[in-house]
């Protein structure tokens, strides 16, 4: 193992502003994996994920001074990455954005996993699971990834109004499902 760099992320960003590439390497080692995983859960093409990861850190290098110092560097990085993903996928229609629910087959009857599955398929789980993939995608892009309606529209290649309608319907459907579950 290499020596652990104890500098805070914000400190690294400041040093990067002065042209220190090794500081970005530390930042990359800390953040690239989870960013890549999170991107890969939204886009099934590893090439696109690699490109977006690259775009993200190139943008971070150029605009490291834009981090205002409030909030998490992680959240800031994700904000950049998800917008890079939107612009990369703008002209790509062959890439599946937001995969379907995973198959349950390969999971063994491991106790720990069973617990997880129970939570996963507890109240909210099946409710979300019952939504159509289109609605889930809208929900994920807007509510969970924090994209605006117009960004979500670009990412999913659908009109903005459709994003709004689907989001609205998804919320109504979720509320219904949860109410049914309780009664």
């Amino acid at each position: 193992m290499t020596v652990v760099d104890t500098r805070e992320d914000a400190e690294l960003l400041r040093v990067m502003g002065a042209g220190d590439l090794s500081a970005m390497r530390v930042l990359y080692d800390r953040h690239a994996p989870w960013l890549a995983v999170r991107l890969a859960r939204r886009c099934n093409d590893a090439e696109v994920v690699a490109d977006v990861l690259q775009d993200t850190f190139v943008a971070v290098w150029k605009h490291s001074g834009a981090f205002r110092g409030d909030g998490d560097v992680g959240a800031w990085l994700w904000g950049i990455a998800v917008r890079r993903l939107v612009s990369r996928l703008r002209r790509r229609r062959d890439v599946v954005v937001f995969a379907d629910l995973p198959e349950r087959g390969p999971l063994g009857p491991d106790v720990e996993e069973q617990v997880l599955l129970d939570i996963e398929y507890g109240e909210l789980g099946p409710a979300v699971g019952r939504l159509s993939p289109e609605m889930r995608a809208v929900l994920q892009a807007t509510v969970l990834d924090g994209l605006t309606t117009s960004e979500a529209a670009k990412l999913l290649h659908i009109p903005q109004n459709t994003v709004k309608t689907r989001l609205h319907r998804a919320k109504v459907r979720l509320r219904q499902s949860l109410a049914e579950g309780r009664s």
Partner: protein
Amino acid sequence: MTTRWHVDEALLVGWVEGRIGPVFAASVEQHVVGCALCRDRVGRAAVSDPGSDLPDFERTWSAIRDAVEVPRPSRTERLLAAGGLSAPDAMLAAGAPALRGAWLSVVALVVLFAAAASLADARAAGVTLFLIVAPLIPVAGVAVAYSVEVDPALEQEAATPYPKLRLVLLRTAAVLVVSLPLVAAAGLFLPTGVSPRWLLPAAGFTAVLLAASTWIDPARPAIAVALGWVITVAVTADRGSPVELLTGSGVIVYLVLLVGGLVALVLRIRHVGVRRRLS
């Protein structure tokens, strides 16, 4: 930090491998954004995952490093590229001495001087000065566009498979685009009969020089043209008004120069080619 909740291992690995559903994935993602400890664990899980659909982190890093270490194109270069030039064309055109600040300030100074002189009492002297200077500005621009003595970088460029003539034409275009508006603006202060007509000798000289540049370093013919022009204008001014140079037989001479130069240039272009060779 010690009492904080962390994602348990099975869930974390499940997320990295893409095996868990959206609700749980969302939960992991929200936590990982703010938790350095779990981020590190994701890093270890992501690297150790054999059948991973994740990118190669080392390769991506070297791509990032390459992208970041490439020097940024200058502002002129980006402007030219936005105008439709290819990246190498933009780089070479931007390297034209005519686009450097020094050249521009000299042109501006000379033109201002000529225009100011023409406004003052010494009207005739001002016109003479303007007549000497204005047509020579594009000439000087072409001369320095491809002279190894002016631009040492040309020694390198000469060794690349980039057609010399293409470079000269590109840079001449740059010279004209940059200088002509300035000179033309100054010409507006002059009496009519001078203002648009000085373009004729300018065009004639430029065409001849461009044609000459296909054989030799354009600096030498440029000096010859400049000397000849200065003497002609001075002698004509001594005998009467230099504006006579822009009328009658003078016009025919410039037109002959222009047409002859252009024809020679076109023939030479067909012969040597201006297309960038691939490789």
